[in-house]
């Protein structure tokens, strides 16, 4: 899922300075799981804005805002949205941009999107996949060096690796050591000597899929 965090409230107040009547969209998908854009967070944001003198015209927790069909339906069926000066969106960048396509009034992002994460428990997420379109997991013991190596190195660790940890953060495992250990268990560490070609970035510039 897409892991998000809430922007500073001061920033939200700043962008809504000229607007008194606000509508809030939440997300019943990832942002609910993240506890950054579920019903509870939408109501909390509404209460905070009201205490700053804003009027909350209404809110909807969309299921899910990254689906343009759901967004279109919401605008068709919920006429009260038009009474607002702007909509605050508690969803990831994909959700924000799908709302942007159909909104008749200004919109403001409330969240910053961090990464595609796996969840250990609420509040504990791991950045394991960069959705790069060049999956190398088959060859790397299903541990992604593109995402989990700070330098995205494809042919093994850098010289900063030590005691199995990464040079940018000594609490972070060097993914190449994890890959090495997994290969060691299977008795195929020599696979590390196989050369992996430079990444093909063309896939990152596919802007739509048919």
């Amino acid at each position, binding site marked *: 899922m897409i892991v998000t965090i809430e922007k500073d409230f001061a920033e939200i107040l700043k962008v809504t300075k000229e607007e008194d009547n606000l509508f809030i969209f939440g997300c019943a998908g990832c942002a609910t799981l993240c506890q950054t854009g579920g019903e509870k967070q939408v109501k909390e944001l509404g209460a905070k804005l009201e205490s700053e003198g804003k009027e909350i015209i209404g809110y909807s927790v969309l299921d899910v805002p990254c689906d343009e069909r759901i967004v279109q339906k919401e605008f068709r069926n919920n006429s009260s949205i038009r009474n607002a000066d702007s909509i605050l969106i508690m969803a990831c960048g994909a959700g924000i941009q799908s709302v942007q396509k159909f909104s008749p009034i200004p919109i403001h992002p409330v969240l910053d999107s961090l990464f595609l994460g796996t969840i250990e428990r609420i509040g504990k997420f791991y950045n394991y996949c960069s959705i790069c379109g060049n999956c190398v997991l088959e060859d790397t013991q299903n541990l992604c060096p593109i995402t989990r190596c700070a*330098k995205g190195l494809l042919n093994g660790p850098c*010289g900063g690796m030590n005691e199995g940890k990464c040079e940018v953060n000594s609490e972070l495992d060097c993914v*190449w*050591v994890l890959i090495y250990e997994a290969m060691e268990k299977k008795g195929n560490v020599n696979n590390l000597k196989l050369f992996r070609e430079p990444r093909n970035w063309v896939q990152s510039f596919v802007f739509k899929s048919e």
Partner: protein
Amino acid sequence: MKFCDILKRKEFVVTCEFCPPKGTDLTEMLQKTELVRPYVDAINVTDNQRARLYPSSLAVSRILKERGFEVICHLTCRDRNRLSLQSDLLGVHILGIENILFLSGDHPLLGDHPESKPVYDLDVSQLLRTASHLKEGKTLSGKKLQNKISLCTGAVVNPEAEPQELQILMMEKKIVLGAEFFQTQPVFDVDKYRKFYDRVKGFGARVLPSVLVIKSAKFAKNMSKVPGIKIPEKYIKRLERAQNPLKEGLKIADEIILALKEFSGGIHLMAPGIEENIPQLKI
């Protein structure tokens, strides 16, 4: 002359590292290089060392080359994509620089521009392969170049990093991809280095272990924070107790050099900011 030819001709080879100044006045650096001239076979010029901004290693390498030094120009993957890396390699050839050392480069988060975008479009293995293409007169994308370029290419290995087995695998891989020599991260544990050396000496690429001169306890503690550098507590204690820490630091370096000389085919000296003391070492 190519560094590889120097390595072939000489049994014991000494190199020394210079980081360009924080600015464009090379006067002090050039004075220091003159002091070390009689003692070294080649000078390494670092490339935005520790992810901090300095003048271009290519430009400074050329200046040293003009003054008759053999130079080993550092080139990191951190700040350049594959176009820029190849462009610089062609530039290195035009400038008459014959030796190049490839490094990943410390992550920008550790340097003085932590907000910058890290590149790492190629890793060192891929860069070695790319350099081999250029040596054959073609680009990474297979386009033909006017001419072939000639370069002696080196890489780095960290003998003290664990797991060491992984370092050795990486070294073998880099040799297959075209690494002709290696320089290491600073060695303080000579026994451990010797065990490493015994494993890799048959690989067919010369390895120069680095000796770092630690000028004070404070400096040693700071250097211990640099990725890949481990300074044993016993040396830090000696510096703390010493009346003249620099003298003690040179003594420690001499002890390490003496022990390395027994078996190693050379050394790479690092005396950041205090290179003028290199002539005092028992090289």
